[in-house]
């Protein structure tokens, strides 16, 4: 299988009044066509920054190094003009706040028709209003919105959060992208609506063979949605591999801690496991391994030296506890 997106040594800095802050450090990962990867991390792990770096939507204070290869082209060095052709039809992003991705003063139907128009223009096809409207209606039906024809005549503010997120997903379908990046698309939604949106994304991803990068803070959501899981901590890839392996047999102490601290059972039976300390702050990271200050297994070396990424039993881990061949970095 060929990688539809390969990230090499992706490093992102933000310029702040207090100097440069490194938010992502040497991230290297391959995402295959048609698979779902969940990127899991706490606040300050750099997970959203990763999504914005791939779509090149970082604020002007962001500095990106490394390379992001998409269809043989490097997105990092790509000029803005060319990028515009990749966004939408190449890579589509679903934001946490769906209202921010729609124009508040245009009717939903019109915005969806525009999406069709953009796709057809980029492919050099002829745009025809009749067939485009039919396609929009079909996609709105696909995302299980009741009364698609009525939804088309509404403004974004007239719809509920769950409905809007579906409209955005329908827009993604109309653009027929290779990759969909969903940045916490369900964390503003209710449990029952979250389940609907996740099931829908999963179903559509399988149907259309897109690559889905699902950014979330919730391991349980990652478990139900993904084929692969990528664990980020303090801007570093800590563990990356098959979902079943990682959730059932986590290797990195951080992943283990996260899984163990997931609430289960009742307080009468046991105390919850909890990782000591606080989520990382980019201003005060430990010298060696960035997780060493919270790690129950940390030994001398962890505090002095930062581990590299290792290939262990078909997955990638950044931890000194595991031997194995050092992963060859592709320059």
């Amino acid at each position, binding site marked *: 299988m060929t990688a539809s997106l390969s990230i090499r040594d992706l490093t992102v800095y933000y310029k*702040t*009044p*207090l100097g440069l802050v490194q938010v992502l450090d040497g991230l290297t990962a391959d995402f295959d066509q048609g698979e779902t990867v969940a990127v899991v991390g706490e*606040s300050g792990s750099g997970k959203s920054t990763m999504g914005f770096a791939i779509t090149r939507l970082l604020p002007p204070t962001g500095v990106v190094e490394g390379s992001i290869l998409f269809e043989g082209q490097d997105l990092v060095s790509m000029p803005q003009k060319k990028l515009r052709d990749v966004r939408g039809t190449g890579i589509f992003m679903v934001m946490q706040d769906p209202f921010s991705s729609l124009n508040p003063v245009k009717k939903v139907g019109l915005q969806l028709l525009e999406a069709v128009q953009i796709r057809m223009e980029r492919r050099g096809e002829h745009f025809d209003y009749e067939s485009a409207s039919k396609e929009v209606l079909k996609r709105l039906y696909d995302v299980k919105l009741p009364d698609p024809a009525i939804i088309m005549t509404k403004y974004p503010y007239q719809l509920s959060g769950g409905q809007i997120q579906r409209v955005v997903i329908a827009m993604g379908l109309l653009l027929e992208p290779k990759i969909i990046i969903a940045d916490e698309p369900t964390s503003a939604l209710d449990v029952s609506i979250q389940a609907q949106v996740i099931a829908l994304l999963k179903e559509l991803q399988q149907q259309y063979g897109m690559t889905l990068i699902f950014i979330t803070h919730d391991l349980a959501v990652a478990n139900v949605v993904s084929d692969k899981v990528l664990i980020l901590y303090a801007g570093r890839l800590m563990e990356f591999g098959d979902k079943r392996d990682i959730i059932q047999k986590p290797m990195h102490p951080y992943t283990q801690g996260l899984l163990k601290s997931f609430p289960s059972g009742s307080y009468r039976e046991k105390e919850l496991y909890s990782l000591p300390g606080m989520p990382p*702050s*980019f*201003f*005060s990271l430990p010298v060696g391994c960035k997780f060493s200050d919270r790690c129950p297994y940390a030994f001398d070396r962890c505090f002095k030296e930062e581990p590299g990424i290792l290939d262990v039993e078909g997955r990638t881990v950044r931890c000194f506890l595991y031997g194995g061949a050092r992963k060859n970095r592709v320059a």
Partner: protein
Amino acid sequence: MKPLSILKKALGFRDDVDAVRAAKGENLSTWYYLLHKKQAVVGIAIIAMFLAWSTVEGIMQLLGGYTRDPSLGWLLLPHNPISSPSLTTSLLPPSLRYPMGTNFEGQDIFSRLLYAAPKDAFAAFVVVLSAVALGSILGIVAGYYGGWMDEILMRITDAFLAFPGLVLAIALSVLIGPGFSSVLIALTVIWWPVYARLFRGQTLTLKYRGFVEISRLFGVSEAKVLFRHIFMNALDPVIAYMALDFGTVILTYSTLAFLGIGIQPPYPEWGSMASNGLSFFPSAWWYTFFPSLTILLVVIGFILFGDSFQDVISGRVVD
């Protein structure tokens, strides 16, 4: 940036300590960020010079009045700003002796500008602070209690806002009678409604914040809640607006003087100087140019500061 580091030291900032705090990920004070913005530093420098001079000169003038020796008021100035008219020095262009030239009465414009500074500073502070005092009380009460209280107070505010400010001020100062204090009263009357609106808006969002609601459970008295939680937290955006407003008050005050309301001759005032000079424009360009430039400079100083303050408080929370 040598002077900046001196200023920082004088204000008690220590780069080494701040660097450590920043390294711990703590948010530093508003002033720390302000001093890292160039336009804020320029604004602060202009305001500081203006205020420092106004204080010194104001004290001298007060002393002069107290000791019945008005010449104390121009002790620090190169010339007597209110000397009796002299044709020999009338309308001299800028020179080493008269850096900004002289006016028709033969008085030194530079000295007159410096002499007038404390009155402008005083006017700006009195008007803005009394407007804030009045506006905050009415705005917070209206916003916090709502209902008919809100309706009544806001309709009154609207009525004041509906009048063109300048016309109202002119009418009022004519009504009260000429003089410095009547201008101040007139300006305050047209100035408070904006602050009432501002405070009401802030109060409406603040009163549903957790810390305001929860203080009721602790039995904290209402007056304390209004001051400690609402007034203090509403202040940040108000300060940004106030900084911009100081400039506007000086401008309006000068406008009134320009129209001949307020300070009476021979005492100098920036606005009236600019207005008098206009009749000699462009042959004696300096007469109107330098007073206008001074007004512009001070107003810009306040705007630069207010603008960057606004930037800092709205962008300070980095999560």
